[in-house]
């Protein structure tokens, strides 16, 4: 297994995600697919012809989720729909992971779970959070990155012009029919938009694009739904909406994570899509 390969102090702890003693003990990295470039001011570490980009959990909900030991794996052939891409901070790390030639295409949960080394690291791959895969082709992974605001989209499109596995989409995520003529079925939807109707947007997009058994990773910001209500109550409400779904699909919640201290008033949800028969 590539997983334990120790390359210059960088060790793969999850597919395409590395830890190292070069920075802080808990720091996570991805192997840069575009060397010599810092996307959002993150530190870059060199090792054996490779560059590793430090993943700042304060700047990225996904980075925070991983710090919170969410068991999330992206493989080299994973197809991702990313809603609320902004200028591409998190998207750039996903792009790294998908392009990493050490990344694998297959579910390796049992291999990893058996390996005691990895258990001690943030993020344990277990069946529940592993993204399902069907294809096996390497470098066939892609991230469809939706952002509706032009200013950040400008950075996003610059990022995509050097990273071929990013498809930038300047569009409103609440109207998936606007991009359904070029977005394919995906293994995972990652959503980080601060909108009062975020659950509906997730359900709508999942109905269009998420494969049966695919994963939804959702960051819920309690304050964007209602500023007065108790966050816990809001989280519960949103989770209920996901569990109810619509006439076609609904979600089974796998895990929830409080993203503090990296992001206050934010909760990360990992859920699995269920097609209603």
């Amino acid at each position, binding site marked *: 297994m590539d997983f334990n390969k120790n390359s210059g102090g960088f060790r793969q702890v999850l597919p395409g995600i590395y830890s190292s003693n070069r920075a802080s003990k808990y720091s996570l990295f991805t192997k840069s697919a575009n060397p010599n470039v810092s996307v959002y001011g993150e530190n870059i570490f060199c090792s054996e012809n490779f560059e590793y980009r430090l993943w700042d959990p304060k700047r990225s909900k996904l980075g925070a989720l991983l710090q919170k030991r969410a068991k999330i794996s992206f493989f080299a052939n994973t197809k991702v729909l990313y809603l609320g891409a902004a200028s591409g901070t998190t998207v750039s790390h996903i792009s790294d992971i998908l392009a990493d030639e050490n990344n694998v295409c297959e579910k390796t949960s049992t291999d990893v779970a058996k390996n005691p080394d990895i258990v001690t690291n943030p993020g344990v791959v277990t069946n529940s959070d592993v993204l399902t895969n069907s294809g096996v*082709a390497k*470098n*066939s992974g*892609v991230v469809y990155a939706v952002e*509706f*605001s*032009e*200013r950040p*989209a*400008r950075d*996003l*499109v610059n990022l*995509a*012009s050097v990273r*071929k*596995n*990013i*498809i*930038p*989409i*300047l569009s*409103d995520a609440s*109207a*998936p*029919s*606007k991009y*359904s*003529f*070029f*977005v*394919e*079925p995906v293994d995972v939807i990652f959503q980080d938009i601060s909108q009062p109707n975020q659950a509906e947007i997730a359900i709508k997009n999942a*109905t*269009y*694009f998420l494969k*049966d058994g695919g994963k939804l990773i959702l960051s819920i910001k309690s304050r964007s739904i209602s500023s007065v209500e108790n966050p816990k109550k809001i989280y519960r409400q949103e989770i209920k909406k996901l569990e109810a779904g619509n006439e*076609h699909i609904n979600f089974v919640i796998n895990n929830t994570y409080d993203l503090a201290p990296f992001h206050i008033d934010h909760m990360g949800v990992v859920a699995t899509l269920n*097609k209603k*028969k």
Partner: protein
Amino acid sequence: MKGSEFAEDIETVKTWFGDFTVSFSKSNSNSNGNFQIISYDLCPKNISDLCERFINLKPSTLDFQFLNQNAGTFPVNLRDIAISSGFVSDEKEYLSLLNAVSVNSVNFKISKSLTEDKNIIQAIEALDDVNESLNLLSERLKEWFGVYAPDSDLLGEEFAEFAVLKTSSVAKGNTESESTESKFLSILDADFPISSAAPLSYTEANLIGSFASDICNLYKRRSDLESYIYSKMKSVAPTLSSVAGESLGARLISMAGSLKRLSNLPSSTVQVMGADKSLFKHKRSRAPSPKHGIIFNHNAVGNSPPQIRGKMAKILSSHISLAARIDYYSGVFNPEIYESMNSKFQNVIDNYRKEKSDKKIR
């Protein structure tokens, strides 16, 4: 045997790389429906054709995702179809083409909207310049040519046209006869029953005539600019145009610097934009804060009784902010903003009328 439980449908599904005619059957049982590609028409495989298609393709009700939902699960998706139809040879080519096309299209969308609001700003500022010049020049013409046509009560563009017409007859008369006698020709005719007009010499006729015709041209430029602003506003800021009107909308964009900046301004700022003088007065002394700036030019504010102008201005400015945000972020016309604004206006007017009639009764 195809049973009656399946209703066969033939439709065209549009994708970014081509049109696919498919037959499918909606299953009413729980089993999967049927789905088959009958024929297809692929887009030429070059970036510029693909981009054009990508940008102009309208969202359709029928896409493969819809088929996936409604006719059962199919082992097909866009990438597989692109490969099996021979559009691309492998997944790598599919992704690099899609990447190139989407990057180009987003760039196109961004640069288009970037330059378009800048064009509006330039045009509205040019319009102001032209108006200022027209005022000056028309006044000059009125004063000058007025000596020869004291009885004309025409104004502006009409007066300039009139001047062109009248002077040209003098100038023409001269070129035809070349005689010194025709140097002085009265422009008296049916249009001029009163004879207090001074006679117009050839030299002056020429000079005033070309001066007046420049003014006429400037008036034409003005209407060109106006119709340009009108149509650009409709495409760049359709919601704002419906709420504020094209001209006021364009002016607000120009004062804010861009549609984006306008969309970021709080509505309280929009309300007093252009009221700089009274705003300073308010800050210096204890004069009342200005209730409305340039939005005073809107009918609903300017033509309302002074008692409710403040309220109307507040409603207008908050809807302007909303509309600018919608136009900047989505770019699609949203008629609801205009409707909600009008109903709020109506409420204020109704209340005002009611109060007024209550007072009268008492």
